[in-house]
């Protein structure tokens, strides 16, 4: 069991009193997480003592900054059980990581090249950041974009898997945990089929990395993307993990300082991965912050965090079921399900739900959660989403339920 009280003390914002006098109940963790003071201290120490540009200096600060930055890469590599630290590329966010892969595949040589004869497979529950890059790639190469649909209870419909993933499929990209439905997807079935047809597999782990053990070797994917700000780290840092031989074979994306081996006006050669994909001054302090966040998460234990969130999810689902006219969009049990719960409340628009909850200090997200196709699929304009994390409590669930009763009364 987590000592949630002790954990909450590490997060300064959680004791914030809002301008209307209400204490903050932060249930918007799928959008972004709060930061413990350990992470903020790491940032401040970096800037107050060691700040320098990395990799190209022989002076003390530059050596220290480089050691801290590369140390963060080690921390990420071991957090996701990467076979090699050189497989960890730092980006600005998960969206850049996913765009990086889509662009590499557009510019790649055979056998990776996505062209007019290729098919790209995604799913209907992707975040826009795992839809739009592939739409752009399809438009620009003439490739065909296909996708898995959803079942009524918020799961992937894999019944036509052999027609969707075919010999023409060059890449299959899908979300491990949906940010809108909370669904945890069955990786193995998809990876198996993708491997059978020789397609590359990209996994969007943005909602998984913060909440459960993430083992890139166990996933057997080719690329895994996630984002720092949802896992206690600063904004401005993301990760792309990729298999070493792919990172070696694939062409660079952004060009500039850091990513080169040698430059002349006529032509350039590129540094080995991961540097090949890190053009310009990297998010140094943010990587250091991510390293500190991982240290914090490891200290608590990812298994313990997952178990805590599972309990909270079960409790929340059972209490939400008490609220009249409330319809959960996504799995209604805690099985293969993470701690982001979307719902509608009668025909009260989610914007109105969120506003009235905010008045009570309860921060939830409303809208399409950057997953508009899911709303279209279920014929709803938007949802209200409550999402939990390691510092969430049953009392916060109770506050949410009270709040929802109040919403109903207000618009009743």
């Amino acid at each position, binding site marked *: 069991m987590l000592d949630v009280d002790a954990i909450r003390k590490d997060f300064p914002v959680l004791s914030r009193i809002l301008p209307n006098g209400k204490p903050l109940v932060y249930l918007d963790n799928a959008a972004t997480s709060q930061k413990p003071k350990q992470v903020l201290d790491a940032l401040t120490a970096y800037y107050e003592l060691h700040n320098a540009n990395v990799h190209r200096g022989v002076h003390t600060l530059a050596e220290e900054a480089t050691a801290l930055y590369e140390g963060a890469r080690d921390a990420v590599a071991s957090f996701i059980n990467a076979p090699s630290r050189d497989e960890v590329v730092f980006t600005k966010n998960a969206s850049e990581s996913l765009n990086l892969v889509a662009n590499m595949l557009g510019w790649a040589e055979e056998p990776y090249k996505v062209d007019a004869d290729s098919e790209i497979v995604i799913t209907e529950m992707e975040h826009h950041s795992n839809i739009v890059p592939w739409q752009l790639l399809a438009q620009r190469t003439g490739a065909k974009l296909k996708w898995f649909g959803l079942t009524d209870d918020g799961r992937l419909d894999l019944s036509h898997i052999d027609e969707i993933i075919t010999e023409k499929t060059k890449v299959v990209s899908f979300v491990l945990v949906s940010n809108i439905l909370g669904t945890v997807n069955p990786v193995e079935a998809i990876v198996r089929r993708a491997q059978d047809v020789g397609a590359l597999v990209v996994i969007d782990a943005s909602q998984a990395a913060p909440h459960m053990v993430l083992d890139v070797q166990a996933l057997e994917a080719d690329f895994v993307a996630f984002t720092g700000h949802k896992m206690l780290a600063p904004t401005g840092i993301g990760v792309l993990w990729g298999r070493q031989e792919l990172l070696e074979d694939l062409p660079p994306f952004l060009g500039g300082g850091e990513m080169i081996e040698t430059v002349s006006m006529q032509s350039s050669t590129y540094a080995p991965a991961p540097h090949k994909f890190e053009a310009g001054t990297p998010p140094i302090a943010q990587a250091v912050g991510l390293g500190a966040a991982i240290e914090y998460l490891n200290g608590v234990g990812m298994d313990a965090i997952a178990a805590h969130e599972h309990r909270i999810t079960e409790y929340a689902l059972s209490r939400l079921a008490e609220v009249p006219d409330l319809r959960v969009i996504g799995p209604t049990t805690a099985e293969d399900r993470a701690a982001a719960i979307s719902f509608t409340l009668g025909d009260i628009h989610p*914007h109105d739900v969120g506003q009235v909850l905010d008045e009570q200090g309860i921060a939830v997200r409303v*809208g*399409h959660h950057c997953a508009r196709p899911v709303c279209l699929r279920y014929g709803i304009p*938007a949802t209200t989403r409550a999402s939990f994390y390691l510092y969430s409590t049953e009392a916060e669930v109770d506050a949410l339920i009270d709040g929802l009763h109040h919403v109903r009364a*207000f618009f009743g």
Partner: protein
Amino acid sequence: MKLDSMYQDIILDHYKHPHGRGLRDGDAEVHHVNPTCGDEITLRVKLEGNVLKDVSYEGQGCSISQASASVLNDLLVGKELGEAQQIQEAFLELMQSKGQLEGDEEVLEDAIAFAGVSKYPARVKCALLSWMAWKDATAQALAGAPVKESA
């Protein structure tokens, strides 16, 4: 309570009983969305000479965006274009006032109920959705654009 300053009874009334809703004949049609929240509106204007004969609309969205379209219909239909435009500008000014203005009831009638909304940046766009759509549709109607099929 702060909430009541946003959700005035007038707004809730318009939301529950919208005026002039539904798509009717028009000279121009536009479809606007609020990307931040997904609110959508399809809106048509019908001109007769210089007079705004009808504003018809259909859409989905929160109470604020729905009520605002209803109030717009009340306020603008039957007005001369110049006057309609003045009302639109007055409403825009009110919504951008961050709670500093109360609005001129002579000009804005029920729309002054939205004064409280102007304190909430994320909701200002909801309140303005139909008004921006109206402005766009009117410009198109004046330019003689044909009625588009609903998207």
